[in-house]
């Protein structure tokens, strides 16, 4: 029994990490249709921001070091969002009608960002010490739930909730959804699509920063941390379906649960191979993913 609970918990934990790296993409790729290959590097920027904030705290406010994480979260969000906003203004803006080109250009951006981080912080990984109050875990029915993983789970649920409220209840969020549904019509009705694009891209990038912040709790971070997650993140968004947040949530937890189950019965390598093969096969059956917007358009 405890094995089953552990496996399910591990599945949810992996799912929450996948969800975190994919929410930002769900906005930029799912809503705006831009393939941002630099998404992984925006995650990396968030992770390094957390490192920087920790260094600042340990130097100037060592008595508050335990709570540096609460300063790191907004710092990671805003720096990544700002970077994403700049990226949109300089580059992506010109590529909205050329998605495959946006893929190539943002891949170039990701190479540059990686190299810049290597120049500033050095090529080796840096370790971020998680706050002490996240050590240990709760023991329920013989199973230990680590605080760190519970924290990430709660963090991602809160983030998704905030994004949902933002998209459905605020005027800017509604405009973003309007542009997603029908760009030309939205533009005719007086919505400045250029402004909305910039907002949406900044928000998506900011969530990538939050994901980076969360990843620092799990292990050391390095310049290539983004490349580890970028393909997984795209798979989550594609499997979940474009344009609906709930699809991304289902996709992430689905992949998380199934792959931990398979890892239990086979090796990690084979589990990854089977998982990806299953996703590819599933998309043959349902090309638009688990949840998708109904549309009557031809293309």
């Amino acid at each position, binding site marked *: 029994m405890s094995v089953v609970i552990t496996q399910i918990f591990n599945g949810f934990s992996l799912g929450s990490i996948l969800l975190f790296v994919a929410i930002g993409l769900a906005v930029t790729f799912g809503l705006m*249709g831009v*393939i941002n290959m630099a998404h992984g590097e925006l995650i990396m920027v968030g992770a390094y921001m957390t490192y920087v904030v920790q260094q600042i705290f340990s130097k100037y406010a060592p008595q508050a070091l335990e709570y540096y994480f609460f300063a790191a979260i907004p710092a990671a969000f805003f720096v990544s969002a700002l970077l994403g906003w700049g990226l949109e203004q300089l*580059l992506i803006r*010109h*590529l909205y009608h*050329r*998605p*495959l*080109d*946006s*893929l*190539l*250009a943002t*891949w*170039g*951006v*990701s*190479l*540059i960002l*990686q*190299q*810049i981080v290597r*120049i500033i912080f050095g090529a080796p990984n840096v370790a971020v010490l998680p706050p002490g109050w996240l050590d240990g875990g709760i023991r329920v029915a013989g199973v230990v739930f680590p605080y760190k993983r519970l924290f990430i789970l709660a963090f991602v649920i809160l983030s998704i909730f905030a994004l949902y409220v933002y998209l459905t209840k605020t005027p800017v969020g509604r405009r973003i959804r309007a542009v997603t549904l029908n760009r030309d019509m939205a533009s005719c009705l007086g919505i400045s699509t250029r402004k909305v694009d910039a907002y949406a891209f900044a928000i998506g990038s900011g969530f990538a920063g939050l994901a980076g912040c969360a990843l620092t709790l799990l292990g050391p971070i390095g310049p290539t941390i983004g*490349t580890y997650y970028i*393909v997984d993140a*795209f*798979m989550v968004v*594609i499997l979940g379906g474009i344009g609906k947040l709930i699809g991304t949530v289902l996709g992430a937890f689905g992949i998380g649960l199934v792959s931990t189950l398979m890892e239990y019965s086979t*090796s990690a*390598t*084979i589990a*990854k*191979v089977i998982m*990806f*093969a299953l*996703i*590819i096969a599933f*998309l*043959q*059956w349902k*090309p638009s993913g688990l949840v998708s917007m109904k549309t009557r358009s*031809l*293309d």
Partner: protein
Amino acid sequence: MIKKGWLYWLFFLALFAAPFYLTEFRLSLLGKFLCFAMIAIGLSLLWGYTGILSLGHGVYFGLGAYCMAMYLKLESAPGRLPDFMEWSGVNKLPWFWKPFEHPLFAISSAIIIPVLLAAFLSYFTFKNRIKGVYFSLLSQAVVVVFVTLFIGKQEWTGGTNGLTNFSTVFGFLLSSPLTQIVLYWITVCLLLLIFLFSRWLTVSRFGRVLVAIRDGENRVRFLGFNPTTYKVFVYSLSAAFAALAGVMFVLQVGLISPAMMGIIPSIEMVLWVAVGGRSSLIGAVIGAIVTNSAKSFFSENYPDIWLLFLGGLFIGVVMFLPNGLAGIYESLKQRKRHGEGRTHEAGSHVSRSVGGF
């Protein structure tokens, strides 16, 4: 057209004569780049003509190279286990390694296996009308699957190190300069054949259907064509080119590892085509040679900043040269043809293809 054809022949003649004016080291580099040019031609057919961007051609390149490398590995130590298997504690040759003792089997399966895989994947994907960005990302997932598998099954594939340390091919010493020159010439011949075949294909009716699929797949479907057949064919063909490139690559470079078929090489392949001009076959060849020369020059001389340069190249080409180097040539030619009386209009052509947006 006739004048242009003359230029092509001059270009290939220069490639044929390369052993006479290049040093051994430069020649082996050029041979490697010509293998890449084969992949680039296939990708140009696929992306430039048909509008399918594959981020997974590293897999076909890698499979072709691995099949050839398995033969080379077995030939180098006849009757004995490959060294990495001994280190991993395998004491018997796995059954699927056995047939690779025969060179004919190795070479034919080096082409057939990747083509079958490509046909299988693309048939189901295109039949279900998965296209554009989704296809690109799925093909990227295929790369992840294969790289994970090849690294994970270390006892069968040599893991991260890949297959290396070959000594002979068909009894000829791989390290001798003469073998290398002959292999280089074979590569040039294959490249020429691939180029001529692809050019014939693009000017034929078939090629026009490909362009029609790129520009309006649904209209092609309404006209009674089945785009799936065309797309599967051109995808498998480009996989065959990539596999052949892998075979020649492993013969000349003497090494294949998962790092050469992963996500980064697969995306770089697309860059070669983008730099050269995606809808120009000769552009793809030149793009592969120019990009890789620039890469080896910059990584030799500026190892710290060459990634910045590579990234900048990606952005620059996409933003300012959407039609690549071939695009510059075309617009210059257009300006010349229009003559002086219409320079104004010709100027706008140039700015359109150079400015991009």
